[in-house]
């Protein structure tokens, strides 16, 4: 690998890692608060991308507005999922997870039937041109992903560590029963967690819409990646998810460059399997006493 390719791959890894982080953090948060494992998280991402496709691609709104539109749309979807799937199956992680597999099917069909199946919906690139770093060229659209992801993660961190509701959310994740004793309403918290989780997935999808083929089935690849990241990081650990996302971003991108995409996927899956076997609680996860 020559130095130009190395730099290029390095840059691509960071882009991939940022987007994985945003997706996985949402998944980890929902799991952390009330053990909500969302199989349709990839479809949430897809809905975010379609929001941009519809608002920006079809209706011609400004791109940033279209991206921001993904927040209420997918957050609402998250809230509905909590209310109608996760809450009735709260006692059982597996049942909720399987039920959201049903939700994934529903969303794929709905979106596919309304905006077309099988066609790759291409969203016109809003920001043309590329950033040139001594021979390494990264499209502005990709460059944009990095600060956006950092901004989102920072906003989430600020919310969790400085807002009262964010602290309550963490309290819920650590000890739901005791949280109730402090007057914290668990149902409201789980709803909030799913809203944030959805908003993050939606934003990630919205940002990726111009650089990723938009299809009803684009969630498939995402969900596997997201679970690999979350399991490697330690299911409930947000910091772990970010660390694992960056790691996997590098692994995926480098293996893809050196070999091919299938091998990259296999290596990713193998990494997750190794972590599950050697350290089932994940890289930054804690063992519960």
């Amino acid at each position, binding site marked *: 690998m020559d130095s130009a390719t190395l730099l290029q791959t390095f840059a691509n890894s960071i882009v991939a890692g940022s987007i994985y982080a945003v997706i996985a953090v949402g998944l980890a948060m929902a799991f952390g608060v009330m053990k909500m494992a969302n199989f349709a998280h990839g479809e949430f991402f897809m809905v975010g991308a379609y929001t941009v496709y519809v608002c920006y691609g079809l209706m011609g709104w400004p791109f940033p507005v279209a991206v921001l539109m993904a927040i209420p749309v997918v957050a609402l979807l998250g809230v509905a999922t909590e209310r109608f799937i996760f809450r009735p199956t709260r006692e059982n992680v597996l049942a909720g997870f399987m039920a959201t597999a049903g939700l994934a099917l529903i969303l794929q069909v709905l979106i596919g039937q309304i905006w077309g199946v099988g066609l790759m919906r291409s969203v016109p690139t809003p920001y043309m041109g590329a950033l040139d770093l001594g021979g390494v060229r990264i499209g502005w659209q990709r460059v944009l992903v990095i600060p956006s992801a950092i901004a989102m993660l920072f906003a989430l961190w600020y919310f969790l560590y400085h807002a*009262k509701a964010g602290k309550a959310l963490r*309290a819920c994740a650590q000890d739901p029963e005791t949280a109730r004793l402090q007057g914290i309403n668990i149902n409201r918290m789980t709803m909030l967690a799913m809203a944030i989780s959805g908003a993050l997935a939606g934003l990630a999808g919205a940002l990726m819409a111009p650089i990723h083929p938009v299809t009803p089935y684009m969630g498939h690849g995402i969900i596997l990646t997201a679970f690999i990241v979350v399991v490697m990081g330690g299911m409930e650990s947000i910091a772990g998810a970010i660390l694992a996302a960056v790691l996997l971003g590098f692994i995926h991108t480098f293996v893809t460059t050196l070999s091919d995409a299938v091998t990259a996927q296999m290596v990713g899956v193998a990494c997750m399997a190794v972590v599950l076997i050697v350290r089932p609680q994940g890289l930054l996860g804690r063992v519960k006493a």
Partner: protein
Amino acid sequence: MLSLKDVWAHYGSVAAVKGISVEVAEAEIVTLIGSNGAGKTTTMRTICGLHKPTKGEILFEGKRINGLDPEKINALGIAMVPEGRHVFPQLTVMENLEMGAYLRKDAAGIRRDLEEMFTHFPILKERHKQLAGTMSGGQQQMVAMARALMSGPKVLLLDEPSLGLSPLMTQQIAKIIKKLNEIGRTIVLVEQNARLAFLLAKRAYVMEIGRISMSGLTVDLKDDPKVRETYLGV
């Protein structure tokens, strides 16, 4: 102020509390003692709403509270320090205290109460940035008590505050409980350490396998051989 009337509580088909009646007056410490498995903790969980009673009535300031969710009961003015403390381990001491005041909106009042907590528990001021999970058992007990007090409760429920603590730490916690009562707090204390409970409380209820076997003033119960028997079996 708080009264339990013929309260029953079950786990599945097993009755853990079998029709107990308890009265708590304002500004007093009432203790519930008895050996492990007597139903003390279940009683506490039933009062604060974590466990729903199957029969009977729980009145707080004349209002029925049985069946309400714990967050509602907390809002009415009953705060609980659960058995085993249950601090939020990954939250700092300060954040734990903030969670205690979760439902309060009066910023000034919260600040005043926070200062009061720091005078009762000076160590918490010193360590307010530390993660609660990394503190010692006795310090965690203080965090849990201060957290409960931060909601400005009318009644404080303390479940086994001396559990697993060294005698020295137990004594320190006991002093704080006494002080809290002296400034007018109403406290329901569940203890396995009978001598500690007798020292603190004016009145006591002795529980045995889900029932109240004895009750009265602690000065009378203190030397009753029957109390000793429930504990030591001789």
